[in-house]
């Protein structure tokens, strides 16, 4: 493995340096039918799950075939996508904001051929490479984060639970039977790298043990004042500790004030939180971001904890499935999950989804908590 230079000269980093050029300009990448009709689209239709047609003022049409994808993608897979795009789409392709792949063609016949091709592609393990779906009143791809594949703070994996959940919900990826769109998201820790806090169903990795303290190294590896300042509950305080026969500067954690957010660990590697028994999943439901009918809203915590169960996170996926089925059975047409829960009342939501209500679900975080308690005699038995 010989080092091959790009032309970059480490001794003269500024030589020929090109910086601040930004991304490629978007319109260089528009397929011709898009370039021509941009801003002049009249309406669209979902021909069947995963397949859309948009019709322009000019009469032009663009057919879009949306395919699911693990967003963790190798170059081999991307090359295969390119190959398909070259074959059917004039060398253009796009990704959606939820990590689906969209192939666009400008006539119906090409579209049918494309679909047949896509449906046939499978990985050796048996899963689809590019399943068609993700439109309309169904489930689409799960927005997610890095998890155990790359991050240092996760309380659960990302790609694994997502794969397991989407296997469970797969039929709804290819169907429009739900009352409205249902957006599932996953974040592997409280940092919530995504819009997880406003999802119909959010899967959240959560720690439950206060940080370990690596006293011997703490002062060497961390800036103690930063670690202290990082804690939102002021649980971290400076301390002196005897390690062996030396007294070292370190920190102490008031464990009863710790909410396991991991901020201290972000600032200081000598305060790890992760723990096999402690870590697991919180389920939140009923959030949304669109302004349609109701205003955007936060997801609410409905299951305080489910242990990590790799590789298939069975309890998590079964619980999600139960929620989806209860929603499908109970909600009105166009009604998002959160709107349904609010209409029937959260007391009914727990009944219908067969979820246990525990004290953890009652807000106790700062002043706004009060507004989530019930200041009324209006409730259902």
């Amino acid at each position, binding site marked *: 493995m010989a*080092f091959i230079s*790009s*032309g970059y000269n*480490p001794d003269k*980093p500024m030589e020929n340096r090109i910086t*601040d*050029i*930004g*991304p*490629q*300009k*978007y319109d*260089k990448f528009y397929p011709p039918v*898009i370039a021509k009709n*941009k*801003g002049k*689209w009249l309406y*669209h*239709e979902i021909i069947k*799950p995963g397949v859309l047609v*948009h019709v322009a003022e000019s009469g032009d049409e663009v057919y879009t075939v949306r395919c699911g994808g*693990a967003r*963790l993608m*190798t*170059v081999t*897979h991307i090359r295969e996508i390119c*190959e398909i795009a*070259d074959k059917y789409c004039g060398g*253009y392709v*796009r*990704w*959606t*904001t939820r*990590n689906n792949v969209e192939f666009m063609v400008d006539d119906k016949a090409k579209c049918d051929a494309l679909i047949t091709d896509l449906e046939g592609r499978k990985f*050796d*393990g*048996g*899963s*689809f490479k590019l399943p068609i779906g993700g439109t309309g009143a169904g489930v689409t791809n799960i927005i997610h984060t*890095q998890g*155990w594949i*790359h991050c240092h703070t996760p309380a659960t994996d990302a790609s694994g639970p997502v*794969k397991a959940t989407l*296997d469970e919900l*797969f039929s709804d990826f290819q*169907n429009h*039977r739900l009352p409205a769109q249902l957006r599932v998201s996953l974040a592997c820790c409280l940092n919530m*790298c*995504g819009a997880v*806090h*406003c999802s119909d169903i959010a899967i959240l990795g959560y720690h439950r043990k206060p940080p370990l303290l690596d006293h011997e190294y703490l002062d060497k590896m961390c800036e103690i004042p930063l670690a202290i300042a990082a804690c939102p509950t002021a649980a971290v305080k400076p301390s002196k500790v005897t390690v062996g026969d030396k007294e070292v500067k370190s920190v102490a954690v008031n464990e009863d004030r710790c909410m396991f957010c991991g901020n201290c660990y972000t600032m200081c590697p000598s305060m790890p939180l992760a723990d096999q028994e402690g870590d697991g999943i919180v389920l939140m439901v009923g959030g949304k*971001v*669109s*302004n*349609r009918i109701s205003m*955007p809203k936060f997801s609410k915590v409905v299951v305080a904890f489910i242990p990590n169960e*790799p*590789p298939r996170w069975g309890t998590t996926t079964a619980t999600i499935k139960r929620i989806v089925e209860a929603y499908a059975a109970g909600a009105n047409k166009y009604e998002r999950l959160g709107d349904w829960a609010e209409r029937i009342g959260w007391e009914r939501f727990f009944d219908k989804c067969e979820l246990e209500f525990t004290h953890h679900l009652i807000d106790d975080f*700062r002043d*706004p908590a009060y507004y989530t308690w019930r200041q009324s005699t209006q409730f259902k038995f």
Partner: protein
Amino acid sequence: MAKHATPLLDQLESGPWPSFVSDLKQEAASRAKNANNVEFQVPQDCVEDLLGVLELSYKHGVTHWKHGGIVGVFGYGGGVIGRYCDQPQEFPGVAHFHTMRINQPGGKFYTTEFLKNLCDLWEFRGSGVTNMHGSTGDIIFIGTSTPQLEEIFYELTHKFDQDLGGSGSNLRTPSDCIGAARCEYACYDTQAICYELTQEYQDELHRPAFPYKFKFKFDGCPNCCVASIARADISFVGTWRDDIKIDQEAVAGYVGGEFAPNAGAHSGRDWGAFDIQKEVIDLCPSQCMKYEGGKLAINTKECTRCMHCINVMPRALHIGDDRGCSMLVGAKAPILDGAQMGSLLVPFIKVEEPYDEIKEVIEAIWDWWMEEGKNRERLGELIKRQGFQKLLEMTNIKPVPQHVQEPRHNPYIFWKEDEVPGGWTRDINKFRERHQR
């Protein structure tokens, strides 16, 4: 044969949804085979080791990655996330395994030519594993070593005219919905302004001068397909001020069952015949619609442009012509003080080149935040700490009822001295003349 046994991960190869494990395995195999004789600049078996370390996490129930340390390219404060494995002996291929953020193109449209170039580069100088795309919007190259960072950057800029995205206390890579490119609901050109502001603020994007991260996201309409309201320090959401355009004939088409409601989005179930009263009029949040005598009427003044009626009848209803966007500020994830959604700051602003008015708002916000924001304090938290009123003052925006969901219910008004006649300086002795002790 695989370098590491992965019995747990193997179970994720079954089931219909695309298996990332299968994909990683095909990549590992491809690198092992190396059909094109690539002179891999990072360990050829790094994907095997990635599978191996992931399997170990599946066994241990915890991650095996540790803190990054500061790595990056010269002169930039962002674009690279350092990452090291905590079992480097066992998995040397991923001992150093940094990610790079490549600023995605607007609308995430690509030519295959460009994509293939990126693939070649990344196979050659990295693991060949990516995220398409990261949550902020970047193309994420997962896994390379420190020496390759400059090489990749050099090739990206010199060969592909392509820059890195943001990380650190910078402007983060702005991102947009597909908008006008393929959507009839777009109220402004999301790609144009996203590109323009990305270019305008390259310095802010690459060189950390902010208290913390800062994000722009551009949604062409209130459907919010890039979820800007949930996760952008400034979200730009398209809207309009005049009438929704109504094609009464097409309305009749929906009522008559000729067109599927909501463009066919509900085709998976028999919901019965379309009932315009129940499905549109009654669900309108502002109750500003009427369907009488076969005519649909909308009272524009009361419409809150929620998009529902248009979504249900896209052939019949179209957004107005006096278009622009609303700007909402302060959205963020829960860390530290709780999640926020964007709060409406500018109800309506035109989105027209050269976007000067918009830039003025942005820069006024930045000036304030850079002056007052504490280290690691997001804009939303600063607004909470100093108050929405302060934000209006600093951006010179007149308070209007649109700014609030409801007026305050606590009467704790912090009057300023200059608002109160006579000021605050009073003489206790004068007071005592009228009020004995």
